């Protein structure tokens, strides 16, 4: 058990699973030279057959991962930045998500596609995508969105061992955050299990990916004012732990969803819809969303940052909910 970063957690998860299972290999653009630090030492350990640089052809090598998986390999594909998933969308949507189904269970596709959510640092609109919700809309893809180093290690290891295709979204705003990483080579966090990141009684914040650390900070600040906030991290989007969310909202009666992605058809919207559909009777006020508005991300550092969820925006939403509720309590229900 040693403290390490989110990036290091990715490296350890990959390394341990490659050591454990000879069928696991990794490929992607410039992974031998290890731009982000997730494959440090890998070529020495595993050789260039299993640590494989690819030409710039995302549709080609992501599709190739499907073929390799079908014949018994367990590929990890490193797509670096999530915006580069778009050129490969056909293989992801038409082949990887659908092959098992369309062939009646004959195909098995144990593969992991990793990519990072690269926003917040003047990368401009073409490199700042956070596209997980569009993959959640298509059946057949499991999706993990770890928000801290420990979850990253446990979820990524579980993803590599999973027999279904898994997309792993790595939030770059979490890259340098640290946690204690278990050394147990079988430390796994089951896909589909959310976690209460902080207990509270007044209000539930359901946050995803880089939204989680911000929600935790907001909760900390609010605690000083006597407002007790529960923070829930679903951790995986598919399968989705609806119960942990509903349980929390049934307890607190108030909910805010936090999602660094664009608002329309976001995971934040999905969570809101789930809450109002299944826990309406418990709700004491609206479910508010704190997301990135439906505009692109500009390069200019002067105007980019204010577009993302922030502690301030979350706190304001909490005030609105708690305030509104006090009002209702004073005036009686309408």
């Amino acid at each position, binding site marked *: 058990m040693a403290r390490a970063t989110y990036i290091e957690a990715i490296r350890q998860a990959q390394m341990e699973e490659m050591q454990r299972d000879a069928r696991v290999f990794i490929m992607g653009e410039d992974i031998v030279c290890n731009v982000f630090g997730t494959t440090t030492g890998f070529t020495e350990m595993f050789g260039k057959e299993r640590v494989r640089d690819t030409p710039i052809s995302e549709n080609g090598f992501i599709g190739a991962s499907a073929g*390799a998986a079908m014949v018994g390999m367990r590929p990890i594909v490193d797509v670096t930045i999530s915006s580069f998933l778009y050129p490969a969308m056909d293989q992801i949507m038409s082949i990887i998500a659908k092959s*098992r189904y369309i062939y*009646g269970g004959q195909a098995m596709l144990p593969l992991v596609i990793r990519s990072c959510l690269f926003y917040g640092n003047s990368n401009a609109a073409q490199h700042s995508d956070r596209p997980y919700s569009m993959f959640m809309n298509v059946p057949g893809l499991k999706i993990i969105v770890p928000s801290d180093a420990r979850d990253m290690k446990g979820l990524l290891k579980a993803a590599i061992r999973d027999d279904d295709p898994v997309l792993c979204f790595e939030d770059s705003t979490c890259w340098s955050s640290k946690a204690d990483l278990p050394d147990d080579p079988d430390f796994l966090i089951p896909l589909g299990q959310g976690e209460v990141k902080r207990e509270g009684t007044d209000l539930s914040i359901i946050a995803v990916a880089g939204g989680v650390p911000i929600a935790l900070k907001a909760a900390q600040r609010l605690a000083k004012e006597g407002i007790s906030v529960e923070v829930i991290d679903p951790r995986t989007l598919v399968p989705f732990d609806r119960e942990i969310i509903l349980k929390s909202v049934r307890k607190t009666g108030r909910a805010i969803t936090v999602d660094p992605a664009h608002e329309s058809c976001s995971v934040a919207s999905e969570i809101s819809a789930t809450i109002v559909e299944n826990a309406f009777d418990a709700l004491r006020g609206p479910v508010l969303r704190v997301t990135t508005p439906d505009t692109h991300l500009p390069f200019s550092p002067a105007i980019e940052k204010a577009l993302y969820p922030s502690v301030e925006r979350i706190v304001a939403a909490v005030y609105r909910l708690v305030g509104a509720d006090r009002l209702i309590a004073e005036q009686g229900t309408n």
Partner: protein
Amino acid sequence: MTYLGNDRSLEKYRRMVRIREFEAVAEAIHAAGEVPGSLHTYTGQEATGVGACIALRNDDYMVGNHRSHGHPIAKGAKLGPLMAELLGKVTGVCKGKGGSMHLSDFSVGSLGETSIVGSGIPVAAGAALGAKLQGTDRVALCFFGDGATNEGAFHEGLNLAAVWKLPAIFLCENNGYAVSTPTSEAVSVPDIADRGKAYGMPSAIVDGQDIDAVEAAVTEAVERARTGGGPTLIEAKTYRFAEHAVNMGRVLRDRGVEVDTWRERDPIHLYRAKLIGDGVAVGTLDGIEQEAKDAVQSALSFARESDYPEQLAAFDDVFVDRLPIPAYLTN
């Protein structure tokens, strides 16, 4: 009974007539409303599929496309599950989930018959990569049409295979058209085989109506692939006798006398004549044809007698574990 051990030629003939007969019945029952969805027949291209598959080992891989009836039969699949699939029955090769465009039998080495044009090509490259990483000498054969060579997936798949020297054979079934579009209006070179030059990949052009020629070309490519020589692009010049898909004749381009000219080069007729010339008794060939008819009829009976899948089966096979069933279907 298969002839492969004793007589390769008869087995080739047998597989071709099984495809022809399977599709004749498939068309008839589609016309009668028994088969839902679309139907793209392979009739006219049988020599390409069978010539290629006969050059493979049983444990080699194969990937195909929307024109999916011929490939599995060429690779030796049983007919019953294929026919049941056309009817959407639970005994179908894909349990009724795939239908006519997706007759993929993994038990004979198939890794999919995928109906998104070009999408099988990276998959085949990946299967070849897998075989290579596993240290086996298996190869992966990929069927696709002339139209598919205009997709980016073709380019990326072939480049990967070439750069990594993968044991893959890319077999373009150039039937002259993509839906209504003549190859010459969509492909900017006279021969698809020219495209191999962009990858430094050996390529060949072969008469797709001549099963022996196809077999020879694919055998050479398989040999190269198995021995570490890397991938090959083969263009088989062939023709589909019917329209792109059944019921599309109405709207599509009139192909005029071209069809008749090609019908004179019916691959089954050509091969039958050749076998007779080689001294095979007409009765033997008639017997094979009769056996195919019987096999297809019994496949049809099997399919018709089979059940449809249960409603909740719709939630199987998205993942290894069944999905949760929505409330409206359980109450």
